[in-house]
């Protein structure tokens, strides 16, 4: 039975690992912890509702397109004007943007959650010994690993990847050697937008509705994942996100019923303990601090 929980937790962990990766990428390049990232996932959710009657490939491409455009608009209209400001200003800007997008979604789609027709193909279960593994879990893990490999290849083998890594390490020096920071930062927002779109498709595939507040909880867990993984470290972020999703699922499954309502409290207690032991996160990037 415990192994079954572990299998489920791996699926959720993979999802959060992806989400955290998108957050960490933007943080690494411009020092912005974008709390409006959850609203990109929410926008992805509403895109799925709008496109639900289309073929599956149109849903995927359409959702990616919408979320990437939203991510680029975020960068251009909200964050670029405050790029030279303090980290606190950027953080507050991201909170304000998150609120704005939530309320805009509330006006556009209503205060009540909008029902999402289930993707029945994803709920197919495979039996492996005593374990039940859903197609959804397999897809989530495979997609997460594929995205991480693709991101690694992109960062290692392409010009924009090398420029992104250089900007991540020392953005001022990167500018001095001619790297165009606008282009690099916009690229980071495109990549993180693609990841947010994929997260939203994986996330809402198991949900029955989408609401204006849908992105709220997921971004908080991903943010904490990035912090315990090590801000500024991609590997650390993915690991931190995975552990958060993994621990969250296990706590919800294993805690006695009367304590289950306190699952979040247990989760964040573990986070505090981890940060007391490793204040810079599990895999600290050079110069990073929490």
């Amino acid at each position, binding site marked *: 039975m415990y192994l079954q929980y572990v299998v489920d937790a791996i699926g959720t962990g993979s999802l959060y690992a992806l989400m955290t990766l998108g957050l960490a990428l933007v943080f690494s390049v411009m020092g912005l912890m974008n709390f409006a990232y959850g609203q990109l996932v929410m926008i992805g959710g509403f895109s799925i509702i709008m496109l639900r009657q289309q073929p599956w490939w149109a849903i995927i491409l359409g959702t990616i397109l919408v979320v990437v455009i939203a991510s680029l608009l975020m960068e251009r209209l909200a964050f670029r004007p405050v790029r030279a400001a303090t980290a606190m200003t950027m953080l507050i800007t991201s909170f304000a943007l998150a609120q704005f997008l939530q309320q805009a979604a509330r006006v556009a789609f209503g205060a009540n959650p909008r029902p999402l027709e289930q993707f029945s193909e994803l709920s197919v279960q495979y039996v492996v010994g005593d374990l039940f593994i859903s197609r959804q879990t397999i897809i989530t893990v495979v997609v997460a690993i594929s995205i991480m490999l693709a991101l690694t290849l992109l960062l290692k083998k392409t*010009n924009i990847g090398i420029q992104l890594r250089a900007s991540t390490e020392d953005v001022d020096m990167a500018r*001095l050697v*001619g790297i165009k920071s606008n282009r690099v930062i916009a690229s980071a927002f495109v990549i993180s937008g693609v990841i947010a779109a994929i997260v939203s498709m994986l996330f809402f595939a198991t949900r029955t509705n989408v609401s204006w507040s849908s992105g709220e909880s997921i971004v908080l867990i991903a943010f904490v994942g990035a912090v315990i993984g090590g801000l500024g470290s991609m590997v650390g972020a993915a690991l931190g996100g995975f552990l958060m999703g993994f621990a969250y699922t296990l706590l919800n499954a294993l805690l006695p019923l009367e304590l289950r309502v306190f699952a979040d409290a247990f989760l964040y207690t573990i986070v505090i303990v981890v940060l007391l032991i490793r204040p810079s996160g599990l895999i600290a990037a050079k110069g990073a601090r929490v």
Partner: protein
Amino acid sequence: MVESDRSDQLVTHGLSVHFDGVKAVDDVDLEVQRGRITGLIGPNGAGKSTLFNAVSGFVPLTAGRVVLGDKDITGWSPTRISQHGLVRSFQDTRIFKTLTVLENVELGAMNQGLNGAKGRDFAYGILELLNIKHLALESAGNVALGDERRAGIARAVATKPDMLLLDEPAAGLDEDETAELSLTIVDLCRELGCGVLLVEHDMSVIFGVCEWIHVMDSGKTIAVGTPQEIRTNPAVIEAYFGKERS
């Protein structure tokens, strides 16, 4: 950049930098010609580093002008200055340690529009010029200090600068490494046809490679001339060598 677009000289006119009333650099006229290695020397506190930082846009000027070729670059940002062909190295190298040595140099090549295989070949050529081709695929954070400095210079050189400002490139190097680096600097200047402004404490480097030397003391220029002229200049002996002897 086509040859005719290149800046032939870097000149400062009456450049001054004051910090809270302290005249770190005071009314300095500096001239660096393309194709020539110019040394900038002076005892500690002479104002060399401040002048160097002011010319490259890292410190605001209190007065005066900086002219690169036919462009007045006074008040420009360091990025804009580097985009116009005046590129500097750093004492602490500021190399991208998580990138390989080759990737560091490729970044400079990308700035020239050289991408993919072309950029890689160009970067390998620069590394060969600096004798660190064998370290191309090493992580830049793992190489020895001397090689790290060379990698930093290689990255600057890969941007094909008109003027290359080298900030104490021999600091922390042993005698052999310093001698080798001196030869490299001469080769670079010859191969690239750029002007070099060299700030260096090691007099063997300065007198070994520079064709023109600018000497400062207490923020002011005290002598300008060929190495031979500087060696015998009484003001330099008094202000610089005299102080060293005492």
